[in-house]
Every structure is written in structure tokens, then in C-alpha cells.
């Protein structure tokens, strides 16, 4: 009996130890990033470039996703409401859903793929090709040089990208409503205004900021942990995307429970 249970118990024990060690490493990594914030001379030069790379260059994909989400929302709302709810509620549903949920979450998940994978593979490659060691020997703190500007860029730019996504999603819903549904612009706007609260926008942007933080921080952490060769970079990239996607969903539930 003992023999039967010893292997799975050992596996559970090992997994728990690995998980707690992983939390410990992530905690130390985050602490080193916070400490490196004071090294403005090192990360200051990188910040604008990272804001452009991680934020501005992400706008097209975010806009693409938001536009089609807005179209589908309008069509599905109309399909659901027909005969039961006044059609101008389409505006309310499109705006509320885009701002509260789909704008930030879909954009966050898309950027977990685009930005998180990009960061993890870039830093992972630098790790396995000794470029991070080279930074150290040239008297640079690699955390200040690589991590801080990326995380700050994520925190600043994700809300901007999400704001674009929210706006484009609603605009796509409006264009769909006036062209494909039997709805006028004043009716759509009436629906949007019906349940609109400026708090919704703040809620959307707070979520986006937290998504920006986890996607960039997890991407950097995964890249820094890469050890070995190309396979290690691949593993780091996968880890970054999977972990940050999961954290986005966890944070989404967390903010809903705390703020709504």
C-alpha cells in the first residue's frame, strides 16, 4: 500500500516544492525590478523605444480584434433582443460589454501573445547567448536595462491600447447597427448612454494597467530564467504566454469582485 502511494505523493511533494521555489524566484525578481526603478540613467533611454514597440505597434492587432468583436456583439445583441427588448439596447450592450470586459480582456490576451512572447524570446535569447552577462560586465544592471523599461512601457501603454480597442469596438458596433440592423444613430447613442458610467472607463483602464504589468513582468521573468539553448527560449516563450494569459483571467475575476 505504501509503495502504491509513495510515487504520487513524492510527485505532489516535488511539484509543491517547485511551485513555492518558483514563487520565491518571481518575488525576488519583482523586488529587483522595484529596486532598479531608481536607476533612471539606465532605463530612461529605453523607455520611449519600448513604449513604441510594445504599445504603438500593438494598436493594429488590438483594433482588428476590437472591430470584429464590436460587429459580432451588435449582431448577436440584435438577434437576442428581437421581439423582447427595444433594439436601442444594442448600443447599451455593445458599449457596456466592450468597456467592462471584452475590450480589456481580449486585448490583454492578444498582447499576452504578441508582447509577452516577444519579450520572453528576446530576453531568453539574450540570456542563452551571454548578452545579459555582457551587460553585467559592461557595468549595466540588466534588470534596470531590460526589465524596467519594458514593464513601465506595458503599464503606461496597455491602457492606451485598450482605450483604442474600447472606442473602435463601440464604433464598429455602431456602424454595424446603422448599416445591418434597423437602428439609427440617435437610437444607438441613446442605448450607449442608458447605462454609461464614467466609472466603467476607469475600471477598464485599471484592468488594462494590471494586465500590462503582468504580461511584461512575466515575459521578462520567463526570459531571464531561460537556461540552455533554443529549446529553453521556446519553453520560456510558451511559459510567458500561458502564465500571463492565466493571470489575466484571474485578475479579471479579481477586479470584478473588488471593484464592481
Amino acid at each position, binding site marked *: 500500500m505504501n509503495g502504491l502511494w509513495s510515487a504520487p505523493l513524492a510527485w505532489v511533494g516535488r511539484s509543491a516544492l517547485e511551485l513555492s521555489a518558483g514563487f520565491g524566484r518571481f518575488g525576488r525578481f519583482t523586488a529587483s525590478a522595484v529596486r532598479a526603478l531608481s536607476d533612471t540613467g539606465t532605463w530612461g533611454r529605453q523607455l520611449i523605444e519600448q513604449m513604441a514597440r510594445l504599445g504603438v505597434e500593438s494598436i493594429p492587432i488590438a483594433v482588428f480584434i476590437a472591430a470584429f468583436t464590436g460587429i459580432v456583439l451588435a449582431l448577436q445583441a440584435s438577434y437576442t433582443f428581437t421581439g423582447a427588448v427595444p433594439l436601442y439596447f444594442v448600443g447599451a450592450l455593445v458599449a457596456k460589454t466592450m468597456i467592462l470586459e471584452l475590450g480589456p480582456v481580449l486585448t490583454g490576451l492578444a498582447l499576452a501573445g504578441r508582447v509577452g512572447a516577444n519579450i520572453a524570446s528576446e530576453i531568453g535569447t*539574450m540570456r542563452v*547567448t*551571454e*548578452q545579459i*552577462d*555582457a*551587460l*553585467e*560586465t*559592461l*557595468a*549595466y*544592471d540588466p534588470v534596470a536595462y531590460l526589465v524596467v523599461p519594458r514593464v513601465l512601457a506595458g503599464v503606461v501603454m496597455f491602457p492606451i491600447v485598450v482605450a483604442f480597442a474600447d472606442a473602435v469596438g463601440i464604433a464598429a458596433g455602431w456602424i454595424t447597427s446603422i448599416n445591418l440592423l434597423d437602428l439609427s444613430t440617435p437610437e444607438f447613442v441613446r442605448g450607449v448612454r442608458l447605462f454609461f458610467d464614467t466609472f466603467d472607463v476607469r475600471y477598464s483602464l485599471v484592468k488594462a494597467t494590471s494586465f500590462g504589468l503582468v504580461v511584461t513582468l512575466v515575459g521578462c521573468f520567463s526570459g531571464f530564467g531561460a537556461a540552455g539553448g533554443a529549446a529553453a527560449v521556446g519553453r520560456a516563450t510558451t511559459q510567458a504566454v500561458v502564465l500571463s494569459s492565466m493571470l489575466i483571467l484571474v485578475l479579471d475575476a479579481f477586479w470584478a469582485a473588488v471593484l464592481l
Partner: protein
Amino acid sequence: MSIRIWEVRKSFGARVVLDGVTLDVDAGETVAIIGFSGSGKSVLLKTIVGLLKPDSGAVFVDGQDVGALRREELYALRRQVGYVFQFAALFDSMTVEENVAMGLRRVPGMTEAQIRERVEESLRLVELEGYGARLPGQLSGGQRKRVGLARAIATRPRYVLYDEPTTGLDPVTTAVIDRLILKLDRELGVTSLVVTHNMESALRIADRIAFLHDGRVRFTGTPDEVRSSEDPIVRAFIEGRPELAQEVV
């Protein structure tokens, strides 16, 4: 101005890589560290600049215990040490010029004009004038190593550490790199530590050669002393004949 490595031990898991290495490098001297692959040569070099911490023992550079330095003190020390990586470790998103300028941007008080001038001068020293605008991906293996060399010496360090500077290069390019190391030693008056398993290179450039084996320094001596050594392990290495030493096979 010297490097003193004292009883350094370093393990990775159960594998003991360095098992009490002691070695002194005097000012202005060029010491080659030779040894079989996996003998811990690169690990030893990394402990000197604090990239790896010894499990026990200590490394002193200019009398400072590297392991005991605070972060800022360590960075100040690293500005005095140039490090040439085995595969150059160039920043592949930057041009050659930007790579060479990286260390200079950490030197307090250097203006952009001075940085540009020093970059050109460093590229001239490694005979790569006119390559500044290229990306590392556009360079040959030998050229990449030379850019790595230019980057390491751009700040005019007092020490240069070379990790396998000629690995993977053809004999002619190897001779070119060796000549450059000698030229830099002569013109810049640096103290050098060269990790290599290329015996010809070691004999050509070193004032003294240390042979690392089984985690310890097994032998130190001048190139002539190495040539005439009767230690079977050393002979096996320099002659490339494993049958000379049973324990090597």
C-alpha cells in the same frame, strides 16, 4: 594591480567544477589558463567579475574581495575589467558602433564626441575601421570576436579577461586574434587572463600558463616550462595524445 584567486570552489548541483583553485596574476602579465573542455576555465573567469559567486574561497582584484563588494562597488570594478566572451555576445539588435559604445556610456563625464572618437580608435585597434554601421549578423566569426575585443577594451580597462577568444576560428584568423591580444597588451599595458584550449595560442601569447585539471591548478609555468613538462596529463594535453595519461582516457 593584480588578480589573486584563492582556494576557489564552485559546484553546480553534485558536480564539482572548481575544487580549490589558487592562482596569482601580476600586473602587466598575460596568463593563459588551459585545460580540457569542461575543466572549469570559463567558470573561473566568471568568478573574477562576479558573474558567478564561488561557494567558498575568494577572488581579489586590486586587493578588493569581489564577492564582498556592494552592487555599486562591483560595477565600479567592472569598469576596470574588459571581458571578451567565447561567442562574442554582441548585442545583435545594435550596430558594431553601438556595441562598442555600450561600456563607454557607463563612464562618468564622457561626452558623445569623446565616445565616438573612442569607438573609432577601438575599432582601429582591432583593424575593423569602417565596420561601425554594420550589424553583428553581417560579420564573420573572426570579425565578431574582434568587435567583442573592441567593446572590451573601449573603456581602456586595466584588466582584460578572454574566454576562448580563438575557438571556432581558422588558423590564420586565430593568429590574427593572437597578434591583436599581444598588440593590446603592449599598447594598452593591460593585465590579461586568457582562457583557451588552443595550445599554440597559449604558447604564443602568454607570459605564464596555468593548467587546470580536476578542479585545481595542476601546473603553472612559462611557455618553455610547459613545453618541457614531464607531467603526463600536461603532455597528453599539449601533444593531443590521451594515451599518455590513463586518467584522461
